[in-house]
């Protein structure tokens, strides 16, 4: 398999991107123009690389990504450059939301709709709000609009040239490794129909519901279940469904629905597949995720707790107060006894 993109072009693009990042990184002397030129340079370099990949593919007769991929890619990269180069943290956080929304667009193009919306809700809705709260809680002395008033923390980057060079080497290495190996990727193990419907076999109740809605099941009929595994007796490749009549606890009749009867609505959608995969294949991971979240919550609470320093006299007063409270309790409980 030949390289997808020639290494020289790739390294040139990466170098251009690195130069743009070095230009866009904040420093004392830099003007707004420098920053914008830098951001545009990075975006153009990486966007151009993505475009080049697509055009190369279309030359060779391979499919290109969907047209909408390009605007999303440009916005994602441009906004992420702004996240790391903006001098004011609030703007960085807002640009990060923009990155999230652009990547959600790409998720939808990759037909991961549920994750796209979950990402907006969790990232843009929850995590970024936490960031904004902390930015408000932990701000240094308020500054005006001018960049001159900004503290060194925000206005000066550490070793911009060196870090950009490291970034350049990283992008070059990662992409070279990926594009060198992408030809050896194994083809999908499942056919399209299998991938779409293999999960249906495991959801007999859903199949029942769809067949009932389509009017294919008379009263008392349902999809046949495998006696051992409980899976629905569906042949996805031949598009046949076996149904059975239940009387009491016994099966009194079975019938085979043929390809012509296969309803269009009988297909697993994204959420079915994701939910089944999550619950069936990774149950322990869910438990672990729960433990991690609980521990993070505890840890964050303990860390961010405010330690109040009381003076000795105050401490004594507090202790005396608590002591009298306990005494009162004892007296009152004694009284009742």
């Amino acid at each position, binding site marked *: 398999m030949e390289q997808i993109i020639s290494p020289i072009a790739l390294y040139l693009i990466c170098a251009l991107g690195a130069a743009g990042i070095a230009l866009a990184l904040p420093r004392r002397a830099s003007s707004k123009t420098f920053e914008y030129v830098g951001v545009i340079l990075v975006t153009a370099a990486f966007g151009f690389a993505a475009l080049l990949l697509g055009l190369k593919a279309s030359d060779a007769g391979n499919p290109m990504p969907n047209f*909408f991929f390009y605007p999303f890619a440009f916005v994602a990269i441009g906004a992420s450059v702004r996240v790391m180069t903006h001098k004011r943290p609030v703007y960085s956080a807002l640009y990060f939301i923009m990155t999230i929304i652009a990547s959600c667009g790409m998720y939808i193009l990759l037909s991961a709709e549920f994750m796209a919306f979950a990402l907006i809700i969790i990232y843009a809705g929850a995590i970024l709000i936490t960031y904004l709260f902390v930015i408000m809680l932990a701000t240094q002395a308020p500054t005006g609009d001018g960049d001159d008033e900004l503290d060194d923390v925000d206005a000066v980057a550490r070793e911009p040239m060196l870090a950009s060079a490291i970034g350049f080497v990283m992008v070059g290495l990662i992409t070279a490794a990926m594009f060198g190996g992408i030809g050896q990727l194994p083809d999908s193990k499942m056919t399209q129909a299998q991938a779409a419907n293999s999960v249906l076999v495991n959801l007999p109740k859903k199949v029942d519901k769809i067949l009932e809605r389509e009017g294919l099941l008379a009263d008392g009929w349902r999809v046949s279940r495998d006696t051992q595994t409980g899976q629905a007796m569906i042949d996805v490749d031949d598009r046949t469904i076996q149904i059975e009549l239940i009387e009491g606890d016994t099966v009194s009749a079975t019938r085979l629905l043929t390809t012509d009867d296969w309803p269009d609505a009988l297909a697993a*959608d994204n959420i079915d597949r994701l939910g089944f995969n999550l619950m069936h294949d990774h149950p322990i991971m869910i438990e672990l995720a729960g433990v991690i979240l609980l521990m993070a919550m505890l840890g964050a609470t303990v860390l961010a707790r405010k330690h109040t320093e009381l003076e000795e006299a105050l401490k004594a007063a507090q202790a005396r107060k608590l002591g009298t409270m306990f005494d009162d309790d004892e007296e009152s409980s004694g009284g009742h006894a």
Partner: protein
Amino acid sequence: MMHAFESIQLAQLAFPTEMSTSVLAPYLFVSAAMFCIGLVGFLTRKNMIIMFLCTELMFQAAGLALIAFGRHHLGADGQTFVIFVLCIAAAEAAMALALVVLLFRHRESLSASAWKELNG
């Protein structure tokens, strides 16, 4: 050129067709670029809040690569892993921001170099 403008096929309506590696490659490139931008940001910026935002950027890039690979293989594993990445990112954000608040209270500065003497 026309097929580039094909309408967005939602999996809810029809299951997507197989995705070739030539479509996968640009997604991976965007993911790599985003990851490295996050990395450079983490290395260069001094403000701790922006440093942690840059780690979120790296999480985001990893998620995009996972979803793209999952789509290529027509499986749901990629999306499942992104759920866990989200979960870890949420936990990390909570801990990191608690740390930022704690450190800010001690030094009245968000600079990571205010804690230079911790270099072992």
